[in-house]
């Protein structure tokens, strides 16, 4: 009995020590009005009902394997050029309007979606949040990805791998640094700077991301990802002022980047991390390119994802920033994102204060 009491006392002391340590960490996390965060999870914001029938009444979409079998039945002879290479050509240079006869693509249905109201308007085609509290949500990419197995939880192929690749691949090490923070619960004006980090994410013994790591700012190669905006924190939720950004986007392979107009986040923040939504309008041409660069047809087959069909759906649902021909070239998008607190080390603050490729938006506009 005495032994048990002793054990309990020890446990209590250890617990108190951990609480103290946690409290100390929290104090350290916010220093001189600054706190840093590093991205640990990013998924397309996909609203799902338990059986999926409301948003995907026709079921989930076919992927490359299913489409290949429909177009080129195995009991018939085919050649590489007319079948395999026809499919790969369509991946990279998709017909903007029509799929091959016999193939179909189902967009997500319904009025409910997760995301942010990007334009402050409640217009036809906008969504309502699952709890009904927010209307005017702009997340047309949900219509594109909502019925693609790759992106649906809990076991879509992309969702399965996303944290693994966050750890393996530091190309997409997106960081946020808040400065001029008086209070992490309520602060009318904080400065938010985006960086790319260079280092591995901190894990606990069970492989879960934890706060308290350090990250060096990539001022050598990641200068174009450095961008600053402002935000306000209300009741622990940070909302940023929209800005145009490029951010590094990759999974296992390749090093593409996304170009986002009117990018912003809405995050519940703490000294341990931040979690919530990211939104903005994505450049469709670049997004399509990135999807192919990130994962080849082999990988997308596991997630039953046909990017040529997605490209056509993106064009159908494009809702912003017309090109020179007057056709919308961007699509409203939403992501669910998670960050962990991190201590940001900036080896060259002079570089980090400016973005030499601040003209990325101008460059992108010039393409159109």
């Amino acid at each position, binding site marked *: 009995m005495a032994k048990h009491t002793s054990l309990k006392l020890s446990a209590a002391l250890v617990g108190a020590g951990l609480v103290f340590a946690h409290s100390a960490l929290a104090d350290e996390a916010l220093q001189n009005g600054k706190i840093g965060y590093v991205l640990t999870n990013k998924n397309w914001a996909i609203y799902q009902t338990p059986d999926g029938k409301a948003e995907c009444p026709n079921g989930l979409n076919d992927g490359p394997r299913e489409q290949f079998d429909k177009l080129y039945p195995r009991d018939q002879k085919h050649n590489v050029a007319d079948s395999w*290479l026809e499919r790969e050509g369509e991946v990279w*240079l998709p017909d903007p309007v029509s799929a091959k006869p016999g193939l179909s693509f189902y967009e997500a249905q319904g009025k409910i979606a997760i995301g942010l109201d990007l334009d402050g308007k409640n217009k036809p085609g906008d969504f309502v949040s699952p709890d009904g509290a927010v209307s005017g949500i702009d997340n047309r990419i949900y219509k594109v990805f909502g019925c693609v197995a790759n992106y649906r939880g809990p076991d879509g192929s992309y969702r399965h791998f996303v944290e693994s690749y966050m750890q393996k691949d530091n190309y997409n090490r997106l960081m946020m640094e808040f400065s001029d923070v008086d209070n992490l619960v309520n602060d009318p004006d904080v400065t938010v700077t985006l960086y790319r980090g260079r280092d591995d994410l901190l894990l606990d013994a069970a492989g879960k991301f934890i706060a308290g790591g350090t990250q060096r700012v990539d001022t050598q190669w990641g200068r174009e990802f450095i961008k600053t905006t402002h935000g306000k924190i209300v009741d622990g939720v940070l909302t940023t002022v929209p800005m145009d950004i490029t951010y590094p986007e990759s999974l296992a392979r390749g090093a593409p980047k996304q170009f986002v107009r009117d990018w912003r986040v809405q995050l519940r923040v703490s000294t341990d991390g931040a979690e919530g939504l990211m939104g903005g309008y994505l450049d469709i041409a670049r997004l399509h390119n990135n999807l192919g660069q990130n994962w080849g047809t082999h990988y997308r087959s596991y997630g039953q994802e046909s990017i040529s069909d997605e490209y056509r759906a993106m064009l159908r649902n494009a809702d912003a920033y017309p090109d020179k021909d007057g056709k919308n070239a961007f699509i409203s998008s939403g992501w669910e994102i998670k960050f962990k607190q991190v201590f940001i080390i900036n080896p060259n603050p002079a570089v980090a204060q400016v973005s030499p490729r601040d003209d990325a938006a101008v460059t992108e506009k010039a393409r159109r």
Partner: protein
Amino acid sequence: MRQYRGVVRLSLAVALVAVTAMAVQGKESHQWTKQQRALTQEYVAEEMPPGFQVVIAEVEGPVFADASGKTLYIWPVTALRNGNAGELKGRPTCDATPTKVTTGLQSPYPGGLELPEVSTRPSCVQVWPPVLADASAKPVGKWTILDGPGGRKQWAYDGQALYTSVLDKKRGDNWGQSNNNPGGDSSGASREPAGPPPNIPPQFAVKSYKNGRLLTLADTKSIYVYDKDAPNKSNCTGACLEKFTPVLAPENVLPQGAWSIIERSSGVKQWAYRKQPVYTYNLEDKTPSFEGGDEPGWRNVFTQLAPAFPKGFQITDTNAGQVLADAKGRTIYLYNCNDDATDQLDCSHPSQPQAYRLALCGKGDWKRCQETFPYLLAANDEKSESQIWSIKYINAASGRWVEPGDPGALRVWAYRDRPVYLCGRDRNPGDFDCDGWGEFSAGRNGWKAFWIRDVYGRNGI
């Protein structure tokens, strides 16, 4: 160097000075002297059968060659997505029967599809002629004689059957396939040049990159030398050792070839290569890397440098490292292709089927391909000063090499006897929007940027 616009503030100007300094620092490969470029990789001179020789190739380093100077290749087993391809040691399989259909070794496409240009598709031995042993041939050292398909007697090195390539025409060509291929399970099972082991202590290894043969530790950490060291004397002490660690030599080891041993302090020995003490970089993240070379006064070590890039070409910073660019700063791309037949033939050369390339760049339309992936044209006054880079004439409609007078012939730059490309989507220096365009992120059929330093990938392999 990137072009920056909109410089309106003094702070920005100050920052740009710093940025410029960093970028220039990384451009090591343009700072090598002619004497340094002339150094070649030492190798272990093993006993060889009569009629064979070692040739120093520009990028591959020392390779075995036949009496005429043709490079010898091996075809090691490679694990692909749905099975293995290549040859086991002692078991040559490359034969004279042309393959007609795909194997399905690479998902998601099934096997049994008829291969492009099937009626004229060569057999494995037509593309990769076996190195035959005559009746009087006798095994020597690691060189043995194997029984191959059709009853042939074939030379092997270290158990791996040897071949030449029909693409190689003269001494030092190794246009068949390269040690610098994309590699991995996502590309095909490619051949590679065979060569003698490098003359390096067992602690070290050599890895082939586009800018040369990089010296590393056996565990892949990069090796560095310090400009402030004297011949066979280290001046890296104190704070210097916080970033770099001397590569220590075992107590009882002896100097070999270009390798000497210096004594840092009593009983502490350090390796020196070509009289320069060698180190590793403590902050190196992915290995091997070029990160330590960003520290002032430090540089990576190459047992043999690649030839200088053609005059006017430049190394350009990107958001993921450095790529080779033309005189206008446009990123240069290489096309990779390996088919899915049992014999895993290359399809990246103009003499090989063009259906793979044309499908991805133009859905079969060669004119569209000249918009998406135009050839890098060579000006009339440009010339190649190396073997691995050349200027040739190509017919864009056929994708074949042609003679200069051929109607529609384009004068283009070639690397390893294959045309190099630009990307129709790139707009600014440092763009590399077409990197990974193709199957399996372009490892199997597609375009990769000409990476000099791929910080977030595999550093240009």
